[in-house]
């Protein structure tokens, strides 16, 4: 057990260091696993990476001569095993190298910046002169002509495409979708159609361009100009698709028109400026090439980046008051948020700009990605809430319409004050609150779609809501992880084989994150599904027979707990195993422990397992009258281990499931009750049949128990003959539980009817034949009666008890 512990300690130390390194954006050059990093190999690590600069060596020497560093190294090597400490040293060497390399790069960049700053006044003339030397005015004009012609070709093709698809698009846009699924389908189809047009445009423009031969610089220039147009159109189309600045009904995000319109404009402006900036930087770096001694290309790109950032900040601060004005729920939270978010985004943009200028590309991307993950999650969640809300709302409206009279569809929608963070994901996240009533800015005539199938799905929508939110969060987080990795030049799929600390660390984090997120997703889905079904379960009222849901009510909470424990265990094991801890002993240990506990608690386990199977068999439900061995009663409750049965006289029996070998259920489907009574031999059996039939009809018409009768009372004729009488049988079939009342009434009515028609019940009488002519005196009569009584009792015996009424 000591060995794993030490390794764990070493790994944790290394992980802390590499965490820092990863943050600083340095992949340690040493590609070694901890076990490979034996001391003699450490110099080889150094040899592999580029030779250190004199500064580095000086720095290293200074560090090595530092007493505190030496002490620390010594204590480390004494306290931890050899491989661990070497790993730490190797990692720190790589880190130092990389760090100083970075510092050098930054320093060089700063000096470049200084040069181009000094030459800034001369830059425009230099650029113009270089341009002139590469391209005459005529050539420039000709390039513009070319670009124009290719754009015309592209737009001509797109127009053609539109002519053939326009009626589809119009149909999609003019029809208001009621259900969420319908909305989603419409949005996807619309996106396909719109982006198909854009694709045709790009193919037309780029295709014709590529089908001609071009001299070098014209090629670069025309390509860049075409790319500007295409990317601006892409951004604009995307924003148009999401925001639908003019038509409220098509908007996919919860924004009012007053916000969507300026937001759309800003997106287009920013996309234009950004792409033009990028293209200009590219053109000038191409133009100036290696002859650029004045840093003109650098100046141009820095200028472009600065202008874009400034515009972005302006956009943020321009949108803030608009959003605040249009948010009609001024709560404290909103106010604080509306002050917080613009500032946050401004700082983010400025940081990104600064990092971009000093050429720390990876850091810049990291800052942007991490900074935008949480706003994006909030925004997407807001959108999901909005969509779910809208579809539930409209479904409810549809129900209302179908139940009441058909209303005109264009009733003004009133949305409740759903507070949501709302913004455009890529450019300007600005929180906002949904306006209480979205303006009815377009009276799109509604072609009501009578799709009533979805009325039932209203409840299931609520079920999917949390799942959708988690799914969105999951996708965003994983996507951000991928982006982050790709910006650092890593590949998520090959990380597990990567042998650097940072690679492993990121791999571990990605593994853990994925495991936790997937478990979370499954848990939320299962929990909401189970809770939903439990919430739908209504316990049986009074004497109603419980339905099959009662069984679910017993099983589902059990299932939920089991699932939770299972998920927690699996996630914990995954986390441990991806952290490099060998979980095989854990699993084996758990197995052994499980066996031991299993033996010890065999009865308990048997109870639990057989209980589950009894429940699955649907052998009994809560509220049913059952008989187990010689115990009878109504099932009152079930625990995980035992069954609680209340006898109709009040006693409670607790029966472990394991003890149940066979079980009789008196409450299923139907019961047959047989009654019999004795009549003298001279009774008219046909008359009895008639009477029974009549009473059977009467019983069936009874309001209270009539519906419970499945087959009403009918006579079975003479069942048998006895010494002094004959036994007439009658029977009826009823629903379980109703038979007692019916039996009571049937007896009563029969008795009355018999009496009315002169049929008497047979009475046990003993005829005593006295062989004497004399009148008997009273005393003799009494003694004779006593003897007869004795004879009667001994002959009849004690009658068997009829089943009791519960």
């Amino acid at each position, binding site marked *: 057990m000591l060995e794993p512990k030490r390794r764990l300690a070493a790994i944790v130390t290394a992980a802390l260091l590499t965490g820092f390194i990863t943050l600083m954006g340095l992949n340690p050059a040493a590609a070694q696993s901890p076990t490979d990093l034996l001391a003699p190999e450490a110099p080889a690590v150094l040899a592999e990476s580029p030779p250190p600069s004199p500064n580095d060596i000086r720095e290293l020497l200074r560090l090595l001569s530092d007493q505190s560093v030496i002490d620390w190294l010594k204590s480390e090597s004494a306290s931890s095993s050899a491989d661990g400490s070497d790993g730490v040293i190797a990692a720190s060497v790589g880190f130092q190298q990389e760090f100083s390399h970075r510092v050098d790069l930054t320093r060089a960049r700063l000096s470049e910046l200084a040069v181009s700053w000094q030459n800034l006044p001369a830059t425009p003339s230099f650029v113009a002169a270089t341009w002139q030397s590469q391209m005459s*005015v*005529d050539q420039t*004009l*000709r390039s*513009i*002509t*070319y670009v*124009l*012609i290719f754009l*015309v*070709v592209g737009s*001509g*093709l797109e*127009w*053609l495409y539109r*002519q*053939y698809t*326009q*009626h589809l698009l*119009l*149909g999609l*846009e*003019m*029809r208001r979708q009621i259900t969420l699924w319908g909305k989603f389908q419409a949005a996807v189809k619309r996106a396909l159609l719109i982006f198909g047009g854009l694709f045709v445009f790009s193919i037309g423009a780029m295709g*014709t361009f590529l089908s*001609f031969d071009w001299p070098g610089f014209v090629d670069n220039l025309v390509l860049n100009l075409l790319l500007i147009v295409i990317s601006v159109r892409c951004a604009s189309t995307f924003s148009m698709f999401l925001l639908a600045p*003019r*038509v409220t009904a098509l908007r996919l995000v919860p924004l009012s028109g007053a916000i969507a319109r300026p937001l759309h404009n800003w997106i287009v402006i920013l996309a234009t400026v950004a792409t033009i900036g990028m293209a200009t930087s590219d053109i000038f770096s191409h133009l100036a090439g290696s002859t650029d001694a004045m840093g003109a290309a650098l100046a141009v790109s820095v200028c472009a980046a600065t202008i874009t950032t400034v515009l972005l900040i302006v956009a943020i601060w321009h949108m803030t008051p608009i959003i605040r004005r249009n948010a009609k729920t001024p709560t404290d939270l909103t106010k604080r948020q509306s002050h917080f978010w613009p500032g946050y985004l401004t700082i983010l943009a400025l940081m990104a700009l600064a990092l971009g200028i000093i050429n720390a590309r990876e850091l810049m991307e990291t800052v942007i990605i991490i900074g935008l993950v949480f706003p994006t999650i909030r925004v997407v969640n807001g959108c999901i809430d909005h969509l779910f809300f809208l579809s539930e709302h409209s479904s409810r409206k549809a129900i209302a319409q179908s139940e009441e009279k*058909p209303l*005109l*569809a*264009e009733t003004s929608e009133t949305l409740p004050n759903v507070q949501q963070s709302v913004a455009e994901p890529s450019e300007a996240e600005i929180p906002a609150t949904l306006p209480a009533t979205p303006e*009815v*800015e*377009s*009276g*799109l*005539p*509604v*072609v*009501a779609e009578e799709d009533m199938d979805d009325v039932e799905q209203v409840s299931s929508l609520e079920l999917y809501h949390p799942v959708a939110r988690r799914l969105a969060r999951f996708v965003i987080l994983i996507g951000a992880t991928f982006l982050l990795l790709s910006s650092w030049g890593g590949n998520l799929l090959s990380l597990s084989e990567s042998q650097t600390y940072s690679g492993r660390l990121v791999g571990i984090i990605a593994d853990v994150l994925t495991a936790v997120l997937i478990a979370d997703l499954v848990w939320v889905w299962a929990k909401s599904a189970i809770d939903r079904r439990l919430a739908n379960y209504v316990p049986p009222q009074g004497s109603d027979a419980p339905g099959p849901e009662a069984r679910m009510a017993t099983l589902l909470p059990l299932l939920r707990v089991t699932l939770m424990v299972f998920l927690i265990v699996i996630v914990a094991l995954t986390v441990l195993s991806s952290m490099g801890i060998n979980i095989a002993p854990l699993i084996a240990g758990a197995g052994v422990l499980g066996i031991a506990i299993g033996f010890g608690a065999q009865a308990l386990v048997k109870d639990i397992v057989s209980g589950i199977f009894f429940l699955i068999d649907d052998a009994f439900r809560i509220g049913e009258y059952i008989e187990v061995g010689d115990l009878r009663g109504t099932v009152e409750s079930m625990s995980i281990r035992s069954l609680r049965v209340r006898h109709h006289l009040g006693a409670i029996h607790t029966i472990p499931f394991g003890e149940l070998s066979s079980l009789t259920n008196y409450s299923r489907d139907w019961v047959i009750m047989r009654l019999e009574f004795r009549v003298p031999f001279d009774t008219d059996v046909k008359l009895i049949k008639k009477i029974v039939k009549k009473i059977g009809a009467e019983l069936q018409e009874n309001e209270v128990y009539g519906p419970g009768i499945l087959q009403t009372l009918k006579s079975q004729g003479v069942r048998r003959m006895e010494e002094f009488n004959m036994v007439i049988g009658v029977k009826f079939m009823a629903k379980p539980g109703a038979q007692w009342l019916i039996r009571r009434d049937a007896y009563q009515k029969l008795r009355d009817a018999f009496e009315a028609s002169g049929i008497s019940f047979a009475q046990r009488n003993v005829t005593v034949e006295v062989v004497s002519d004399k009148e008997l005196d009273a005393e003799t009569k009494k003694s004779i009666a006593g003897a007869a009584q004795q004879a009667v009792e001994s002959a009849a015996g004690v009658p068997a008890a009829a089943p009791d009424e519960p």
Partner: protein
Amino acid sequence: MIRNLRMLSGTVLLVFVTAHLLNMAFGLLSVDAVETARRFLTAPWSLLPLALLLMAAMLVHGFLGLFSLYQRNTLRMSGYDRVQLISGLLIIPLLASHIVGIAAAKNLFGFDPTYRIILTYFWLDAPLEGLRQVFVVVIAWIHGCIGMFSWMRLKIWWNRVSWFIYPLVVAVPVLALLGFVEAGKDVIAERALAITQQMNTGPYDAPQLSAAEEIAQQEANAAAAEVNREKLAFSKRIMWSIIFVFAFLLVLTLLARAIRLRKAPDAMTFIRYMKGPEINTQVGKSLLEISRLHDLPHANLCRGRGRCGTCRVRVIEASPALPAAGEIEQQTLDRLDCGPGVRLACQVVPLAGTLAIERIVPPDITPADLYSPNQSDGVALTQWSAEVSDA
């Protein structure tokens, strides 16, 4: 009358442009092919009757365009209308230099402007002119096509031929422009070849002239250059005067329109759309224009020219009563066999007061639905008519 005149003159101009563009498309083969095609496609337009027809069509169409601008109640219009208006206004200033240049070449300089010369001029001597030509080709073509479409798409045969016309509409300008590029590349290559040849052979071929001859030739050259410069300046003046006259007419039209609108009463009218919002708006615009001003979808296949009748509305309540239907409106209403209380939104100008109307035709109607409303596959239409009949 005005409508038909506009259509006729526009058709003549569009035929001319098409022939011209088709001619240019031969550039994809070679410059010589363009030259050969010119004899059949472009040259006939210089013949007197055709030239006169062309001139007349241009003038009539131009003035009618300005007149329709004068008649507009609002400048907020549908995308197609806006494109139509702006492109129409741009054609004259952009095209002036080309027309004047060709005319000057023929009449002042007395040489036949072959495609080789023109192409060399456009691609090498004055690339800005070439750029302008590309613009004008695109703009004129768009203008012409929109005009033709608004007219043709209401015809019963449109549904059958449209699928073949659409590709043609794109193919003609695209081929012409690609021909322009390809021929231009040929011309540029020829020029480069000529320059290199001249540089290689130039010093040896130069004829040895005496001093006097040289001076005489220089003087002659200078005189010719002077004459050319004067002629060029003259043609430039003509071009600019055309542009200025046009600009003056445009400003005049806008002023007249402003005065006309200023006179209009400044009252408000309240309009209630069934299955739509209630709006309060200024009088003086047609119902269709009001719908468009408020972003309300309203079918209008002929773009407010009173031809198609798809903008028709049922007037449910009007106080005061709407002005009686004009000739155009009545014709269309009779043709469509509309009952009383139905009016064309593009022609009705509501007075100050209140009005309740119902749009009859769904806004996503296509020309295909016009003639087969019952068996159209547009579900929207049938649903819509069901709703209307319910209401």
